[in-house]
């Protein structure tokens, strides 16, 4: 039999109907729902008199709008209505929800894996582009629009054209102190914001195999920033160890059976892809973005580029527009850029290992004068774990604000934002214009680099700073 990639295996396994001249009808194993992209979908069901076909395969949370302090008294009434609408919809249609009072509440892409809902070989969708995060487990996971949310609620399936496959191979070993965030920012800087368009990417190579599950989630999370439809990593023992004992994972003999089913999805030896890109892990340094898309990034030892460096007219114009928005001069050293804000959080980097790395830099240090720094755990469960480990005390002692879980300043739909013209070192995934607030200037970095910027007042190579391991 022809060797297959994990992408082809999951696709073939989930094809309900395949006919010429139309997309395939794909079965969806897990549908995650949040408050911002679902109200119109539930309303559509109601107007047509339809039900949710498989409430048991549907799971909801609220994350985008939730305040990260004073959660019990929400002052934004439009946001409050959107959250209440989700609760009402879930009750009416019989969908389980981790609402704002649930100990399981958190960012949808953090709690799916935590609860063991995310598993290898599954098809997973959510009305959110960072659904690609779940690909870390060897699931085919992608973001959809609200009409598709309604379609999945009603039919548990989706019409999808077969994707092209791409291998993104990270060869060799990472240098000491380099994180998953640096890998994915380096990949996107090297190949651009749309090199993945039309493709599902599989990340492979020695450097990827050596990553923990949380690090793999950071990589897969940003596949969409490379334009990919999804990004995933074949399951291995690291995947199995993470999932064992989690809430929605079977136990005992059933678990062993599950494991062999999961492993059968891993890419076959000698399988081939439609295209392959490669990067050498050893060349990756701590990354900082300087512009308004995630590909506009350089090593912390680099400098802000000049429009003169552009390869084409449109690229030149894009650099000019980014520099103007960011208030940066060509040739400025990255380590000379001062920040006023630091945000540690988001579905990219808000898990316990992210917080530990940031805490290792913050421990015994002080946030620099003129910097406001905040830490927003990805879920209430991460928050609880961090507090048991004393990370909250380390952060508070250093002058960081310690908050409740949510998407927070990644997209600033809740009350947390960066004021116009001010600069933020952020562990989130998008440095788009206005993303963290109108006129806000975002620099994407890893959690350790964000903490380094907080205590230093400007960007610094975290490897040059004192670090105190916290666990």
């Amino acid at each position, binding site marked *: 039999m022809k060797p297959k990639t994990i992408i082809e295996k999951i696709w073939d396994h989930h094809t309900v109907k395949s006919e010429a001249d139309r997309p395939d009808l794909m079965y969806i194993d897990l549908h995650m729902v949040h408050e911002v992209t679902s109200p119109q979908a539930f309303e559509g069901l109601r107007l047509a008199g339809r039900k949710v076909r498989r409430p048991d395969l549907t799971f909801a949370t609220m994350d985008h709008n939730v305040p990260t302090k004073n959660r019990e008294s929400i002052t934004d009434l439009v946001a409050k*209505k959107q959250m209440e609408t989700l609760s009402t919809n879930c009750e009416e249609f019989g969908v389980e929800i981790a609402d704002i009072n649930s100990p399981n509440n958190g960012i949808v892409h953090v709690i799916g894996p935590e609860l063991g809902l995310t598993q290898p070989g599954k098809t997973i969708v959510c009305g959110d582009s960072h659904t690609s995060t779940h690909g870390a487990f060897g699931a085919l996971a992608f973001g959809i629009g609200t009409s598709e949310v309604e379609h999945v609620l009603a039919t548990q399936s989706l019409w999808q054209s077969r994707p092209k496959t791409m291998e993104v191979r990270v060869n060799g070993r990472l240098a000491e102190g380099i994180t998953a965030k640096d890998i994915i920012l380096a990949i996107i800087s090297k190949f651009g*914001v749309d090199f993945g368009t039309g493709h599902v990417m599989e990340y492979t190579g020695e450097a990827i195999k050596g990553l923990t599950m949380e690090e793999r989630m950071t990589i897969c999370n940003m596949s969409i920033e490379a334009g990919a439809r999804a990004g995933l990593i074949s399951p291995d023992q690291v995947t199995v160890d993470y999932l064992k004992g989690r809430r929605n994972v079977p136990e005992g003999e059933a678990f062993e059976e599950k494991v062999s089913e999961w492993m059968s999805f891993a890419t076959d030896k000698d399988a081939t892809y439609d295209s392959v890109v490669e990067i050498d892990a050893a060349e990756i340094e701590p990354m900082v973005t300087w512009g308004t898309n995630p590909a506009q990034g350089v090593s912390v030892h680099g400098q802000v580029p000049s429009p003169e460096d552009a390869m084409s007219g449109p690229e030149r114009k894009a650099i000019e527009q980014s520099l103007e928005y960011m208030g940066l001069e060509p040739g400025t050293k990255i380590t000379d850029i001062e920040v006023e804000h630091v945000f540690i959080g988001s579905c990219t980097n808000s898990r316990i290992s992210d917080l530990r790395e940031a805490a290792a830099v913050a421990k015994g240090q002080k946030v620099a004068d003129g910097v406001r720094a905040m830490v927003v755990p990805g879920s209430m469960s991460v928050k609880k774990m961090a507090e048991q480990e004393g990370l909250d005390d380390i952060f508070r002692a250093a002058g960081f604000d310690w908050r409740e879980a949510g998407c927070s300043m990644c997209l600033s739909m809740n009350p947390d934002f960066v004021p116009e013209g001010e600069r933020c070192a952020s562990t989130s995934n*998008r440095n788009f214009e206005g993303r963290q607030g109108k006129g806000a200037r975002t620099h994407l970095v890893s959690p350790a680099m964000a903490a380094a910027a907080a205590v230093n007042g400007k960007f610094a190579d975290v490897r040059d700073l004192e670090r105190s391991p916290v666990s």
Partner: protein
Amino acid sequence: MEPLVTLKGNTGVLPRVNIDTDQIIPKQFLKRVERTGFGQFLFFDWRFNADGSDNENFELNQPHAKDASILIADHNFGCGSSREHAPWALNDYGFRVVIAPSFADIFYNNCFKNGILPIRLPEDEVYALMEKGRDAIYELTVDLENQKITDDGGFETSFEIDPYLKGMLLNGWDEISLTLQYENEIESYEKEVQA
């Protein structure tokens, strides 16, 4: 959904690459629970000054582009967030066709659910159209049935489109009703594969 068969309309030109859905509709307008009324917020941060007045430098605020129904933009249009509020806002503002050298996948799919036709054309053709519509009223006729774009001056080009997606727009199909015709197949999949 309202079918789209042919459209003759004025063009609006946005000569920028990587226009993301955060620019098309900023996050503060995503809290509504309805599908309608988003047009007033389209390209909000580019279109309006801080005091709420029109930003006269913004391309779509130029007098010649005021009533545009065909948007012409550069590579990777609609990248970023999956928010369907982006096509809702474009449609509500009056755009029914977007022409660009390339689109982001989720946005491209979302268009077809909302009666918007995204057309991929080669880069040089897009740039030529941009030149014509940049400073003057420039009307195009888009004929979806025959997959052709023409202007009154003799310009003509054709475009590719997936036949299924084309059918969706031409007929204004409700995709869920269509899928429910396959309910037996979905049920047998559930019985066989999930058992």
